[in-house]
C-alpha cells in the first residue's frame, strides 16, 4: 500500500505563503500573550494551591454542591479569590477544582485550611477516603526555582542541539533547525495562551519533547538534503531541496501519522492528569511536521540563495 507515489509538489516555490501563514499564527499567539501579560503559568511556577476534590453526595438526601456555595464557604474562612471549577467525573462523580495563588509563604497551610472548611461545611458530601484526588501546594520560592530550571533546560536543550547539528552538518543547518523549533514552541505556547490553558511543569516537558520530535523530523529531511546536494550538483539549491522534501514526504507523513494517533489516544483515553500534556504534544506533532517541510528546509534555500548571490551560482561554479 502507498499513500504517495513519486510526488513533485513545489514546496519551496510556496515558501512565501507558508512563511505568511506561520507569521500570522505566531503573531496571533504573541498578541494574545501580550494582552494576557505573558503565558498563564500554573502554580508550579507562581506558587499556590491546586486541588481536585470529590464531593459526590454520600449521605442520604445530600444535594450536589453549587460552586457558589463553595466559594462562599471559602470566602467566609478568609480564602478569597479562589478559582473554583466543576469538572465532569466518571460514573456521576462530582469533582471540583480549586485553585488559589500563593499567599505569602506556605506557613498558612492553605490547602489544609480548604480541606477543613470543606469537611466542616459539606459533611454530607465528604467521604474522607476519597475526598482528596489531587492536592498540590507550591511555595513561591519553589515556583521561582522551577521557573529558572525550566528556562535553563530549554536553553541547554537548544544549545546541545545546535552543537550536535553543527558537528554533523554545518552551523546553518543547526540554526535553521533551531529557528524551526522556536517556530514550533512559539505556536504551541501561543495556542495555549489563546485557549487560556496553563503552562505547568509538565507542559514545559511537553515543549521539550516537541522540540525533540520536530527536530527528529527536520533532521531526516536535512539528511536527505545533504545527500542530494552531493548527488545532483547541477541542479539549483531550491530544486534539490524541493526534491529532498518530496522524497522524504511519505516517511514524514507516515511517522507523523503514527505519532499523532498514539498521542491522540493519550489525549482521549489518558485521563485528566495527562490531558493538557497530550494536547501540547498533539499541537506539537502537527506543527513540528509542518515546520520541517515549510520552515526549516525553505530557510536553508534562503540561506543558500544568499550565499549564491555572494559567491556566484553553484551550477556555474562547479563547471
Amino acid at each position: 500500500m502507498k499513500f504517495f507515489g513519486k510526488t513533485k509538489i513545489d514546496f519551496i516555490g510556496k515558501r512565501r505563503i507558508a512563511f505568511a501563514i506561520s507569521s500570522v499564527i505566531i503573531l496571533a499567539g504573541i498578541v494574545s500573550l501580550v494582552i494576557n501579560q505573558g503565558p498563564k503559568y500554573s502554580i508550579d511556577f507562581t506558587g499556590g494551591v491546586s486541588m481536585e476534590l470529590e464531593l459526590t453526595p454520600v449521605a442520604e438526601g445530600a444535594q450536589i454542591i453549587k460552586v457558589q456555595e463553595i466559594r462562599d464557604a471559602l470566602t467566609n474562612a478568609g480564602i478569597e479569590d479562589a478559582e473554583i471549577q466543576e469538572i465532569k467525573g466518571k460514573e456521576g462523580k462530582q469533582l471540583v477544582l480549586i485553585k488559589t495563588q500563593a499567599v505569602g509563604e506556605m506557613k498558612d497551610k492553605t490547602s489544609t485550611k480548604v480541606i477543613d472548611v470543606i469537611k466542616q461545611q459539606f459533611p454530607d458530601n465528604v467521604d474522607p477516603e476519597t475526598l482528596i484526588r489531587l492536592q498540590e501546594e507550591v511555595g513561591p520560592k519553589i515556583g521561582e526555582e522551577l521557573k529558572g530550571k525550566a528556562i535553563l533546560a530549554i536553553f541547554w536543550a537548544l544549545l546541545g542541539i545546535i552543537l550536535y547539528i553543527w558537528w554533523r552538518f554545518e552551523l546553518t543547518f543547526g540554526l535553521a533547525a533551531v529557528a524551526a523549533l522556536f517556530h514550533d514552541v512559539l505556536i504551541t505556547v501561543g495556542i495555549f495562551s489563546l485557549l487560556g490553558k496553563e503552562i505547568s511543569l509538565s507542559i514545559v516537558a511537553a515543549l521539550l519533547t516537541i522540540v525533540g520530535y520536530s527536530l527528529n523530523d527536520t533532521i531526516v529531511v536535512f539528511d536527505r538534503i545533504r545527500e542530494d546536494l552531493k548527488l545532483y550538483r547541477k541542479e539549483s539549491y531550491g530544486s534539490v531541496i524541493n526534491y529532498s522534501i518530496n522524497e522524504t514526504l511519505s516517511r514524514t507523513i507516515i511517522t507523523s501519522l503514527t505519532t499523532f494517533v498514539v498521542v491522540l489516544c493519550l489525549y482521549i483515553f489518558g485521563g485528566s492528569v495527562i490531558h493538557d500534556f497530550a494536547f501540547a504534544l498533539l499541537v506539537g506533532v502537527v506543527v513540528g511536521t509542518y515546520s520541517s517541510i515549510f520552515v526549516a528546509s525553505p530557510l536553508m534555500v534562503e540561506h543558500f540563495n544568499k550565499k549564491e548571490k555572494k559567491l556566484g551560482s553553484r551550477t556555474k561554479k562547479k563547471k
Partner: protein
Amino acid sequence: MRNRKIRGLIILVVLLVTAYYFLPMVVPNLPSFWTTKRLKLGLDLQGGSQIQLEVDFTNSELSDKEREDAIKTAYEIIRNRIDQFGVAEPLIQRVANTNRIIIQLPGLKDPSRAKNLIGKTAMLEFKFVASSEQMQETYEAMDKFLQENIEKYEFMSEFVDADETEEVVDVLGSDEETDDESYENAMIFTDLTTSEEGMPLQIDYKHIAKLKSLLMDPEFVKNVPTGLQISLGKENKDDPYSARNIYILHKNAEITGTSLENAITKIGQGYTAKDKGPYIMLEFKKSGAKKFKNITGQNIGERLAIILDDIVFMAPTIESRIPDGQARITGNFTIEECHDLVIVLNAGSLPAPVNIIEERTVGPTLGSDSIKAGIMAALIGMIAVILFMMVYYKLSGFFADIAVTVNVAFIVAVMTMLEGTLTMPGIAGMILTIGMAVDANVIIFERIREYLAAGKTIRSAVDSGFNRALVTILDANITTLITALVLYQFGTGPIKGFAVTLSIGIVGSMFASIVLVKAIFDGLITNSAKDKLSI
C-alpha cells in the same frame, strides 16, 4: 557469516534478559527469586503524598558547620516522627547540598496530619500566666501602641471605627465631641478580644488571623511590656470556628522539653468531661522532676501554662506540690491528636523551624484512574499503530510490529532491572515511543521501496536501505536523546520518569528496528527464493 553469529547472539541475550524482567509483569506466581526486582509505581499512580521541607535558618546565626548539624538532626527527628506515624515504606531523603528534605508517603489519603506532625518544632515549655495587673498593663500598652501606629496596621482599622460608635452610644454626646475623645481612648487591641466575666479573655475565630499577624510583627512584639508575652490558646477540634483563648504569660520558661523523659497517651476513664477521653502523661527526668517539684511547691495558686510550639494547650492552677515529676496535659483531644503530640514530644524538638515549601498529594482514586487510563491509551495506541503498519507495509510492517512490541517489553524490563519508578508521564513517554519507534522502520522501508523501484535486487535494496537509513536514524534519534537527557537533568520526579522511559525507548527502538528487523530480513531473504518482497 561470523558477524551474523555475533549479531544473533546479541539479539538472543537482549531478548532473554528482556523476557526475564518483563515476565513478572504478566505471569503471576513466578518463583520468588524471579520477582525480587520489581517496577515500583510512582505516587501519582498508587496515591500518596510528597512533601518537601526546608530547614529555616533566616532567624538564626549559625556557622556552616552548625547548620549542617542542624539539618542532620532535623532529618533524624523527622525520620523518627514519620517512622512512628505508621505509613508503609516511607521515603525520607535529604536533597544533597541544600537544607531541604523530601518525604514520600505512599498511600496517604490526607496529608494534613502528616504535615502537622512534620512541621511541629515541638518546643515544649512551661510558663507562668501573668497576674491580672500585668494583663491589664499589657492590654493598655498594646492599645496605646496600636493607636499611635494605626497607619502601619491597616487591618486593625475596623476597631477604631467600632470604638467610635460605641462611644457615641455610651456618652450620648454630640458627634464632634466624641470623635476626638473616642479616638484617644480607642481600645484597639482590647476590642480584638472578648471577655466575659470570670472567663479568660478570648478571641473570635474571625479575628484570629489578625492576632496572628500582630504576633508575627516584630515591632508589635517589641512593645509588649518587658518580660511578658501574648500567646494564643489551642483550637477546639470539635468546633474549629469557635473562639480561642488568649493568654498573657511570663516570657521566661520554667521548664522546657529538654527535661522531658517520656510522654505517653492515656485514656481517662472518669465521668466528668475533664477526666474522660485521651490525655498526655508527661514524665520528667530526675533533674526535671526536682525542678518541677520546687516550682509547683512554691507557686500554689498560680496558673502554669503548658505551651507547645507557642500554642498554649492548657493553663491549670497549681493546687499542690507535684513531687513525682509527672504532669498531664488534658483538654479536648482526639485520639489521633494525642498520638501525634506524643510522637513529636518523644522524638525531640527540631533544632530550627522547618517550613513545608512544596506538597503534592494524589488520592488513591485518581491514582487508579490514571493507571487504567494510561494502560487503555497505551493499548489502543499500540493496536492502531500495529494495524496500520501491517496494512501499509504488509509482511515488513509485521516485522516492524515485532520491533515495537519488543521495544515496549524492553522499556518495562529495563525499568524493572533498574528498579525504577513508573509514573504517569513515564507511561506517556512509553506511548510516545510506540508512535516514534516505528519511525526508524518507516525510514528504512521507504528507502528499500525507493531502491526496489530503482530496479535493485531485493538483497541489495534491503542492504543499502538499512545502511543508508542508519545514518539518518542515528542523527535523528541522538538529538531526541539530547532533549531527553536535558529533561532528566532538570526535571523533578515525574518529569524524570518521562525522560527515562523516553530515553530507554529511543535506545530500544534503534536496537529493535535496526538490528532485530534486519536479522529477520536477512533470515527471510536467505531462506526463501522469492523474488518479491512484501513491503
